[in-house]
Structures are given as structure tokens and as C-alpha cells.
């Protein structure tokens, strides 16, 4: 119980800070939208091909915007040595992990909630009825991205050139999430149902559960000062 309570307190602190400043959310949102334009110029897509490529393009955009968010994830703590204060307080490190994961998840998911419909509008896609299923897959994928992302953001925290190092370490580890989400969304867009996507969905849930657990267990070692 204390774990959840501490997580809640830390998460609300981060969200309050973000609401006051809106640094990460705004930059992530504009970067995500910008990427849609870049994709359009790069591929010059015809309407019948766009539905095929939509999942891949969307996830590329989410990966890049998510990495942007992760690079800023511990910035507030670093600036005024707040991280040391947090670590000195009688706080479960697992709660810190959950709160940071949750915070990045909220940022990414808010961006995704806007970018996916925007994609549908900009590229004239008609399958609006599939959006709930696609959001479910996106949600699971984003959880996976944020769990492992928070761990990698924490271990690259004190590295030189950490913004460059983060995606280098994170993306290869992210392959299961990238493959599973994109294949899942493809089969949903092709068949209109979830049945064919089930194995991938299970893999995604497995990934989320495994790395949430590992994160809570090892964050003690990850964040030590």
C-alpha cells in the first residue's frame, strides 16, 4: 500500500510541475506532429498505401517523441540536486520507478491520443471505428516503452552525451515492443478484428509485466548515488 501511495505522491508532484511548465508535453506534441509532416514529404504516399504503412509510421513517431520525453525525465531532479533529497527520504525506490514510468506514460499517451486522430485526418483514413482497438495496442506498447525507457534513462543519467546514448541503448532492447505493436496494429487494420493479433498482444502484455516487475525490484541499484 505504501508503495502505491508513494507512487501517487511522486507522480502527482511530477504532473503538477509539468502542468505549470508544460515543457515536455508541448515539445513532444509538436515534435510528433512535425514528424507526420516529414513522413508525408518523405514518402509522398498514395491513399491506398497509407493504410498499410500507418502503424509503422505512427510507431516511429511515438518512438522518437517518447525518447525526447525520456531524455528530460530526470531533468527536474538533476537541476537542484533534488534526486539526492529524494534518495535521502524514506522512500521505496520501486515507487520512484513506478512514478517516473507513469509520468512518461501519461505524457506519451496524451500525445498519442492527439496524434493518431490527427494522422487519420491528415492522411484521409476512413477506418475510424478501429481507433479503440488501436489505442489499446498503443497503450500496452507505451507501457512497455516507458518501463524499459525509465530504466535506461536512469542508467544513462550520469553519462556524457546521454541524449545520444539513450536511444542507442534503448532501441535494440525495444525490438519486441516495436515488432509486436506494429504487427498487432497491422493485423487490426487489415482484418478489423483482434483475433489474429492475439499472440502479439500476449507478447506485449508479457513484456510489460516482466519489465515492470524487474524495474520495481532492481531500481534500488539503478538509481543509487
Amino acid at each position: 500500500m505504501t508503495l502505491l501511495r508513494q507512487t501517487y505522491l511522486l507522480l502527482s508532484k511530477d504532473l503538477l510541475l509539468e502542468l505549470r511548465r508544460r515543457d515536455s508535453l508541448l515539445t513532444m506534441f509538436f515534435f510528433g506532429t512535425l514528424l507526420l509532416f516529414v513522413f508525408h514529404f518523405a514518402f509522398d504516399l498514395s491513399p491506398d498505401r497509407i493504410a498499410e504503412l500507418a502503424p509503422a509510421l505512427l510507431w516511429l513517431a511515438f518512438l522518437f517523441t517518447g525518447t525526447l520525453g525520456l531524455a528530460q525525465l530526470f531533468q527536474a531532479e538533476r537541476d537542484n540536486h533534488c534526486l539526492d533529497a529524494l534518495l535521502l527520504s524514506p522512500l521505496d525506490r520501486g515507487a520512484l520507478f513506478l512514478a517516473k514510468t507513469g509520468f512518461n506514460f501519461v505524457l506519451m499517451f496524451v500525445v498519442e491520443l492527439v496524434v493518431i486522430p490527427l494522422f487519420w485526418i491528415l492522411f484521409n483514413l476512413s477506418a475510424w471505428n478501429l481507433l479503440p482497438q488501436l489505442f489499446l495496442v498503443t497503450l500496452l506498447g507505451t507501457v512497455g516503452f516507458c518501463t524499459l525507457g525509465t530504466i535506461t534513462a536512469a542508467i544513462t543519467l550520469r553519462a556524457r552525451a546521454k541524449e545520444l546514448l539513450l536511444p542507442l541503448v534503448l532501441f535494440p532492447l525495444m525490438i519486441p515492443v516495436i515488432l509486436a505493436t506494429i504487427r498487432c496494429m497491422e493485423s487490426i487494420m487489415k482484418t478489423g478484428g483482434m483475433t489474429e493479433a492475439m499472440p502479439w498482444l500476449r507478447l506485449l502484455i508479457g513484456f510489460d509485466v516482466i519489465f515492470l516487475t524487474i524495474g520495481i525490484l532492481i531500481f534500488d541499484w539503478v538509481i543509487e548515488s
Partner: protein
Amino acid sequence: MAQSTAAVKKRKGVLGGLALLAIIAGLCWSLLIAPPDGYQGEVQRIMYLHLPSILTAYLSYFLVFIGSGMYLWKREKKDDLLAHAAAELGVLFTALTIVEGSIWGKPTWGVWWTWDARLTLTAILLLIYAGYLMLRSLIDDEQRAASAAAILGIIGFFDIPLIHMSVYWWRTLHQPPSILRPDKKPWENVHPDMLTALAISFVGFLLLYFYLLSLRYRVGEMRQEIKALRLERGV
């Protein structure tokens, strides 16, 4: 101290000599004695290097995992040195595997590279552990670098089965294993000379691996010693 160093050096020399002998024997057996493959002909002989290199690389990543776990648990520098040495050798042997595979792939499949599951998995392993080495080199504080790398060594290891599963579902083209098959015993479907050649090659690679590992480990130790000496003399 001096005598024990000499003894260690001697042991390492013996290990290196044995590795050299076993690799020469393995090459002789696989190039001269083992028969050419029924379908692929002479080019199949690259298998005698290909399989031992990837198995050695896997062993290496397992050692990274063990070293990382032990380091986080006991905080002893030697476990971190082991993980670091093993990661470097793992990257080396994975890169070798990919190069050998390309040379084998061109005549048999007609391409240097294809996005088949096992090839993709191997390439991802290379990327993960190259990232591991980069992470180490970019953190100045030595203790922090060691813990960060240990965390990556552990999560990387847990991620491998998931990556494996996802890329296998995605696609499979690589020839299925022909030696360890459920329907036949190894010596029934492969020429015994082929098996011997492979076994000798494998032993040779293992000896070479542990020889290199001990050398690389010693380099890490020597770096520690130099640092300690510098601190002592206030340089």
C-alpha cells in the same frame, strides 16, 4: 607476488598453446578429413567455424549476466572486470559469426544478408552489447559505470528470450538445425567425421575464448593497479 605472476603467466601460455593446437587440429579435420556436404558442397565447411563462434558468443553473454548479477550483489571489482571482458569478447565473436555467415550466405542463399529471424537476432545482440560497451565508456565515474553496465547486462539478458520470440514469429528462413533433431540421433544423420571436426573446432574455440578472456581480464586488473599506484604517488 613475482612468482605467482610468473605461474599465472605460464598457465596462460599453456592455455594459449592448447587453443592454437586445437584450432589447427580442428581446421585440418574440417578442411581435409570431413566429407563435403551432400547439397552445399565445399562451402558448407564454414559451418565448422560458424557454429563454434556463435556458441562462444552466447556463452560470453551468459558470463556478462553472471558477472553483472554477482557485481550488484557482492560489489566486488573482479565480477565487474569479468562482465566487461566477456562483453567485449561477446561482441567480437558475434561480429565474427555475422561475417562468416555472410560469406556462407552469399553462395548458398545468393545474398550476403537477409532479414531472417536468426540473423536478425544475432545482429540485435551485437547492437545491445555494443551499446553496453558504449555506456561503460561514456560514464566517467568508475563505480557508476560498473553499476549502470551491470543493470544493462541483466535487463539485456532477460530481454533476449522476448526478442528471440518476436523475431521468430516475424520470419524464419535460416536452415533448421541439422545436428540436434528430435527425430534422429546426431550420429545417424551427420557423417561422424563431420561431428568430430565440429567437436574439435568447438573445443578449440572454447580454449581460445578462455585464453582471450584471461588476457582481457588481466588488462582490466592492470588498469586498476595503475590507478591505485597513481593515487599512492599523488600523480
